[in-house]
Structures are given as C-alpha cells and as structure tokens.
C-alpha cells in the first residue's frame, strides 16, 4: 500500500522534522515496514553526504563491527583522495553516517568512488538534501536519527509496506536521483515495466542500489533532466513512459512536484494555504499538522503539479 507525504513552507524554514514525523506517523497503517525522509535544510556551501555501510537487518556476524570500521576508514580515505576536506562525520547509527565535506569536484565521481567500497550506498548527496531512512515507524526513525529539531523549508516522506522487494534500507524510500544533487523521489504504487527501464537506464550508465521498482522513477527523472528537460517536462514525459499505477512526489532544492498515473489508481490529497502546501496519501496526515478545519481535494488522473519555492 505505502503512504507518501510532502510539505513546503511558503515563508521560510520551520519545524520540518517534527511535522513530517507527525504526517508519517499518522499514516503508519499504510506501511509499517520502513520510514524515510528527504529533508531540505538551509542550503549549505559544503556538500552533505548521507551514506550507509550496512543494512539495519544484516546479520551481525563476528567481524561485523571490525569490517564496518575498516569500510568507514576506507570511505573517508576515498573522500580525501578525491580532494574533499572532511568537516565532520556523524554516525547516527552504527551503519549510517552523515558527512559534511568541502568539495568542489564531480559529484557522480564521488558517489561512484564511495559506492565502490563494499556495502556502501550513498543515500543522498547535495547541498541541502538529506535522506534519512530506516526500518520501523516514523517515531522510531525520527528518534534514532534525531530529526525532531530538524528545521527546513520542504520535505517528502514515505511509509513503506514492502510488496515488490525486501524489507531493508535499500528498499526504503525516498530514492535519491543519482547522480543529481538535491533531487529525491517517493512513490506509492507498482511499476510494471521496471525491468525494461532498468536495462535501458543501466546501459546509459546509471547505477541501481536496490531491487525496488520505485528506484526507477528517481533514476528516470535524473536521466531526463540530464538530457536537458526541466523537472516538470520530465514528469510529464514519465506519464507516457512508466507503466503501472503510481503517485509519486519529487523534490529538488527549490521545487516539489507530484504526478499521478492515468488511472488515478493511487490516492493523493492536496491542501494549499498561504503559508504551506501539504500533500499526502490520506487527509489524516495533513490534519496531523494543521489543527483547524481545512478544505482539500484530490488531483485527477494524469496530473502533474509543481510548486516552486
């Protein structure tokens, strides 16, 4: 089933972590397996990298922590090797990290080189995007990654009921649109031409980190934007190219867009006011952050809506 949510504050940064947690927690019944956030904090000059070196439910064999330490050292060495100055590395769990780098080189090269380390997956890369995802409900993940105090301008989130692939962090949303800085996607639905698109996109040089069909959307949009399309054009094109049922939300550093398939098979409720735009699979998620009576509507089939901030 899965639940998706998105929010943009129209007048600057607010309590993004807290609000998104409330929205996602209220939709826990749509997906209790894992929860993910793509949060946009204030734009920073340094590069923010969120990466993980193991999965939450990997077996903890006897040299697990030693291996993790070795890989962690290797990742940091490779960052320096590419000319990055590491300002800080925080370990929020024993397998997921957040690094702040002074780096002016090619981001794809950085991501590729880091992911070459065994077990390493770059969850997000950019100047303001931070993707946090883990197993459990929103409150569990928020507590684990200390998101309650995260302030920012816009975000998307996802609660997952795993249907197409395993319950693990690799299969959790949001997906970063590798190799584009500051672009992420959440998706509710199933894509039926996944393998077709996966083969096509792999041939044009993209990498896939999971078996999850939703990852296609992020990489697809990255490919189209790489060809020179705007986000909105790429989303319109995706309605033609992707088969199956879907409602997905895509965010970039200054925009948030949503697209619905031509059957309108997956729900989306939209609320717009002077101070915020909130959208979610269920109205109850919007009510979790707005405490007065509100008027909402469901966008129609084949609609693409993009808000700039």
């Amino acid at each position, binding site marked *: 089933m899965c639940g998706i949510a998105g929010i943009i504050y129209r007048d600057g940064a607010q309590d993004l972590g807290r609000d998104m947690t409330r929205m996602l927690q209220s939709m826990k*019944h749509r997906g209790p397996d894992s929860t993910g956030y793509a949060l946009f904090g204030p734009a920073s000059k340094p590069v923010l990298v969120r990466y993980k070196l193991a999965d939450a439910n990997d077996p903890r064999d006897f040299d697990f922590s030693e291996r993790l330490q070795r890989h962690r050292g290797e990742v940091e060495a490779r960052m320096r090797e590419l000319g990055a100055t590491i300002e800080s590395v925080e370990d929020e769990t024993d397998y997921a990290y957040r690094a702040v780098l002074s780096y002016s080189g090619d981001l794809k090269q950085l991501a590729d080189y880091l992911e070459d380390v065994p077990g390493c997956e770059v969850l997000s890369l950019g100047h303001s995007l931070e993707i946090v995802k883990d197993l459990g409900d929103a409150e569990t993940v928020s507590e684990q990654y200390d998101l309650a105090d995260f302030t920012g301008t816009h975000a998307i989130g996802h609660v997952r009921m795993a249907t197409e692939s395993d319950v693990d962090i690799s299969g959790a949303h949001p997906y970063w649109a590798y190799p584009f800085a500051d672009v992420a996607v959440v998706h509710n639905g199933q894509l039926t031409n996944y393998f077709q698109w996966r083969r096509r996109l792999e041939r044009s040089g993209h990498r896939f980190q999971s078996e999850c069909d939703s990852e296609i959307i992020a990489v697809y949009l990255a490919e189209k934007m790489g060809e020179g399309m705007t986000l909105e054009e790429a989303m319109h094109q995706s309605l033609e190219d992707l088969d199956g049922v879907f409602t997905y939300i895509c965010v970039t550093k200054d925009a948030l867009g949503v697209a619905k398939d*031509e059957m*309108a098979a997956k729900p989306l409720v939209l609320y717009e006011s002077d101070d915020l735009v909130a959208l979610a699979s269920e109205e109850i998620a919007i*009510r979790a952050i707005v405490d007065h009576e509100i008027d909402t509507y469901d966008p129609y089939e084949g609609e693409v809506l993009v808000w700039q901030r």
Partner: protein
Amino acid sequence: MAAVGERQISYDARGLAEPNAEVPKVSEVDGAKAVFDARDLTTRQINLELRWLLYEQGVTDVTVKNPGSKHSIGVGILTRCKITFEGSLGYFGCGLIDGPEIHITGRVGWSACENMMSGVVVIEGNAGSLTGAALRGGDLVVKGRVGARSGIDQKGGTIITLGSAGSMNGFMMQRGRQVICGDVGPGLGDSMYDGIMYVGGKVKSLGIDCVEGEWTDADTEFIERKFRIYGLGSPPELQKFVCGKKLYNYDNLEPSERKLVL
C-alpha cells in the same frame, strides 16, 4: 491530539489495536438529539458511540463534531436517523448504511457511502475516488468535485455531483443514475450494463459501450425533482448517456451451451 513528541497509538484504521474498545458515553443527550466531540476518540469509539445513541438511547438526531478525517466513520448504520458530521471524513465514510440521512459539512475521502442501501448523504465539500461504489439505493449529493471511478458497479440510487469528476465514472454501472454538473474525465461509463449518466460539462471521452441517450420528459422530471428536493437551484443543461448494449449478450447462449439446454 497528542502533544509534540508524545508517543501514542498511531492512528488505528482497522481497529486491531483496540479490540476491547468500549462505548465512551461522552454525548450530551437532549431528548431525541445528541451531540458529541470526536476529536479525542478513536474510530471504534466514535462508531460505538453512534450505535449506542441510535440503537439503545432512542436518539434520532446526532451531531458529531471534529471527525478529523478519520477513516470508516458512521458505517453500518441500519436505522432511520439524522447524523451531521461537522467536519471531514477519511476513507470509507458512511459505508454500508441503510436508512440514515447524513450531512457532512466537510469533505470525504475515498470510497464514501460504499454499498449504501437507502437514505440520503449530502457532502458539502469534495469527495475522493470510488464515491458511492456499488451503491444500491438512496441519494448521494456531492457539492464539490469527485475523484475517479465514482459509482463504480453502481446498482441503484442516485449520485449527484455539482462539481467535476475524474476518469471512468460509472465504470461497470448496472442500474441507477448519476448526475455530474461539471466536466468529466476520460472513460465515462466504461463497460456499463445499464443505468443513466447525465453530464453538464465537457466529456473528455466516453468509455467502451457508453453512448449518448435520447432525452425524454421523464428525464426532465427526474432532474428537476432531485434538484428541488436538495435545493440545488436550477439544473444546468445536461447530456444523457446510456449503455449501448453492444458489449454483452445475456440471452445469447454459446452454441455448445444451447445444445445442453435444449
């Protein structure tokens, strides 16, 4: 609503986390009328309270404040009564009802009034997809817009929408009527067996075996009567769509079957 950071049972859509919920008995009852605030009640508590009032307390007019878009509210009410929801309902609101007169001042989510048998539901706001799915009887009035597949598998009753509608309205409709004053999306009345759809706005495309019907005096009488009953003003110019009856053949047996019968 819980305070910031306070841990609580997350929204329990299926009632599984509270199998032993009890009637909260928080209503202010005044003769045959009752009012209660649903803000801090769970889905099961709200429905138990409604049942307790309508079936055991002899109340016939209930007002529910702050339903807060919770799912599955007001379902399975099988008695004649009046219920007012001051606010919005989530998914599956007022499903499986037989008899009540329900007024919702906000909007409803997906699958509102599913399988309604009789009664009246008036929704002031918008409705989600699958509104009035498998409707058997009664009147459903949506003053806003409806999503996709309204009246899917409709078997009777009337759905009136003042706003626009999404794709595949009246999909596999078997009987009953739909009036949509605004524009409709693609695939109107796809694979319908019977029933009538009236559309005031533009039709993006007709579904398979849905054709334009011939307007009769009975249609005018029906539309005017319904608009008068619900105070909807004068009806717009409407177009009528019916089943072309090309897609199915109930009476024509396959040659092999005919041998068996004869």
